[in-house]
């Protein structure tokens, strides 16, 4: 398919919901999410020759959206505090009440694992495979598997320690 406006709209038709959900999950506001999604499709257009074919194109858009969200934070000094939240606590957009009180402990623990938090979110929120998450993060599948395993163990340790301190 030629990389023209019809292609872009086809990409949007297939990917918009997933990419928007990805952004909403991580952005400090709906407006920031919309900015990131807009940026992602603009970048897709400008770099249309390197956008992978389906289904990997959505993974590519996740990566661009992730960068756009990070750039929003870097580019605006007023958002310094929000950046910290973006990296550690993306759930500040109103969401459903967590059914398990341990979710709060988990979120606190994730603060201490900023590098691996995004990986775990890709695996559990976007339900990506290790290989797909590796594409988004620009790393290898083996590295993802290793990091994910290690991060889960570390999270469990941190939550246990937090529970012990709280008792």
């Amino acid at each position, binding site marked *: 398919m*030629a*990389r*023209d*406006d*019809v292609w*872009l*709209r*086809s990409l*949007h*038709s297939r990917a*918009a*919901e997933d*990419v*928007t*959900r990805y952004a*909403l*999950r991580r952005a400090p506001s*709906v407006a920031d*999410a*919309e*900015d990131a*999604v*807009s*940026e*992602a*499709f*603009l970048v897709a*257009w*400008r770099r249309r020759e390197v956008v992978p074919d389906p289904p990997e194109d959505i993974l590519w858009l996740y990566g661009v959206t992730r960068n756009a969200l990070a750039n929003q934070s870097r580019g605006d000094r007023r958002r310094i505090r929000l950046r910290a939240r973006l990296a550690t606590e*993306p*759930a*500040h*957009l*109103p*969401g*459903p009440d*967590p*059914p*398990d009180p*341990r*979710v709060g402990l*988990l*979120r606190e623990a994730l603060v201490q694992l900023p590098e691996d938090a995004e990986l*775990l*979110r890709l*695996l*559990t*929120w976007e339900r990506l495979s290790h290989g797909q998450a590796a594409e988004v993060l620009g790393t290898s599948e083996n590295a993802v598997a290793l990091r994910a*395993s290690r991060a*889960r*163990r570390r*999270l*469990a340790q941190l939550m246990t320690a937090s529970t012990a301190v709280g008792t």
Partner: protein
Amino acid sequence: MDDRDHDIDALLAASDPWPPSREVDPTIAVRALARAEKEMSMTDQASTPPRRRPGRRGLAVVLAVVVVVAAAALGVTRLGGEGADVAGGSGRALGSPFASCLEFSVETLALAPIAFDGTVSSIDGGRVTFDVERWYRGGDGDTVTVAAQSLIDGAPELEGGVGFVEGRRYLVSADDSTGPIVPAICGFTVEYDEGMADTWARAFVG
């Protein structure tokens, strides 16, 4: 993964602020695309490939986009003092830097999964209800309600918006791929007249 890993993953999933069960407002992505397209038109004109007439598959895609974009463009506006509830734009051709309307054709119209002839019986927020005179495709009820989202500041201006007015009769084609039924614009939803009704009958024959 052992049981502890599964437990952690379950907690991570439970911490999802936007789980699959939580609807994503489709107008966010529509506005985002329109903004991106606007910037493209300003900065990328030289390298933008010339528009070409899309193939049949392309027509379906474009029709779907026309319908999706209409979700943002067909706002419901209560016009104070006018004595009528009007959903959508003024009916004039609205300019759009990139998303210009696909030229109307019976072939494209025939791709619509939903099409009917109906009279607006009520307008409530972003929902417009029709008493159906005739279903061409996609339904059999006496009434049908379609989504017409409010215009939002910064929303794209589009060609071919149509204003819904209570008591008036329209030929509506629509898509339901995004959940709610959203009328297509750009001449694919029009106020009723017998000539257009003949066109629609030809489009959906059989």
